[in-house]
């Protein structure tokens, strides 16, 4: 199957998946016993966060591959995945914030997981900014790869430090955003949306990679005509 074909297939599946996700999230799953309708945001928030973590993990692996083998494709995957990861994380945090307002009465909390996720977002925004500022493409790729590797390896350390810090300064009775139930029809909604957002990630990644390939082709043509 061609790259374009895969991309189209993913796009179609993602669209279907998202529709299915909307259906299951809004109609199929029952409202939460405690939180009411607001809980439905979790069907957006949780998949977004999980797919983000996947995206950043892929940035990490692709970065290592790039430094090791200098395959341009690995770098393209890293860069694209980082873009999508940053977008999804920002959306996830926004969704969580919207959930938090009616639930806890606040837009923000210094909960450990939220704090760590925000730091993760900052690190990878930094990654994108760094790459945007470096003029020479392959130098930017190397810098980005090193930053991504350190950033990703830092995440567990950051998380531990924030959790310990929180237990010092906050009583442990803070509500945590997350699926607040295990009712099977809610699980259906959750997994459907998770699958849908993963497909969307795949589609966006494929599309972005195609853009990179077009750029390479353009460069190659330029070099041929002028060189």
């Amino acid at each position: 199957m061609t790259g374009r074909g895969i991309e189209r297939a993913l796009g179609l599946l993602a669209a279907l998946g998202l529709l299915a996700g909307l259906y299951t999230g809004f109609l199929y799953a029952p409202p939460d016993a405690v939180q009411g309708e607001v809980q439905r945001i979790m069907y957006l928030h949780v998949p977004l966060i999980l797919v983000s973590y996947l995206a950043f993990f892929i940035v990490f692996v692709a970065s290592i591959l790039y430094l090791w083998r200098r395959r341009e494709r690995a770098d393209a995957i890293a860069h694209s995945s980082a873009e999508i990861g940053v977008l999804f994380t920002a959306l996830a945090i926004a969704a969580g914030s919207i959930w938090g307002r009616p639930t806890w009465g606040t837009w923000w909390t210094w909960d450990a997981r939220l704090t760590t996720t925000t730091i993760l977002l900052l690190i990878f925004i930094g990654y994108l900014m760094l790459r945007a500022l470096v003029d020479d493409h392959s130098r930017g790729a190397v810098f980005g790869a090193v930053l991504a590797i350190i950033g990703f390896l830092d995440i567990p350390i950051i998380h531990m430090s924030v959790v310990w810090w929180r237990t010092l300064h906050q009583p442990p009775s803070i509500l945590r955003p997350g699926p607040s139930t295990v009712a099977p029809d809610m699980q259906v909604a959750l997994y459907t949306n998770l699958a849908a957002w993963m497909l969307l990630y795949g589609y966006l990644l494929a599309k972005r990679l195609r853009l990179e390939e077009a750029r390479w082709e353009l460069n190659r043509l330029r070099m041929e005509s002028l060189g």
Partner: protein
Amino acid sequence: MSFARRVWAIAWKDLLAEWRDRESVTAMFYFAFLVLFLFSFALGADQALIRGASSGLLWLAFTFTSVLGLGRSIQGELENDCLDGLLLYPAEREAIYLGKLCGNFSAILVVEMVTLPIFAVLYNMDLWSQLPKLMVIAVPGTLGLAATGTLLSSMTAGLRAREAMLPFLLFPLTIPLLLAAVRGTEVVLLGEPFELAVPWLKLMAAFDTVVLVVSLMTFEYLVEE
């Protein structure tokens, strides 16, 4: 061993050049002082609040000051193409990284030591008896800042937005160090049992190890164009 000789040569050269003019460490010290001074104003007159926040303020001052020092260190190499000269020696890239790291680490540590008495005066703390323990906390924290900062400043050195990018990349990554150093300092200053600081020391050691290993493995790729 020539590797060690080179590391020493680079660190010594950095510190000697700095000592001659003393521009950088003076600016760093003055900045740390200003941060401590201004913050105590900003927190108002509540002495308990100020004392409670003091460890945090101290390490904020140290972190900002490190950024200043790191920036000036790499700037010194960019003048007159000295960085190019440095990279033209048949020196292992790791030796260059470690040499710069030692220079940066020493400069920041010196500024911290000089800032501590000022801190003690402004915040009315008895530091003298606690100095060894404070050092035990400060050394791994400063090492982590210097190691990460040396790595990042080699990336940001040539950029248009160098001044802004270095802190923007450095701060999120070094948050665990900040938390650990603040909590550790707090333990010492409040006279709490030192075992409470030990998990934080281990955290800093883990962080420092990760950064040092990754930096040593990747530095040579960062400096070629």
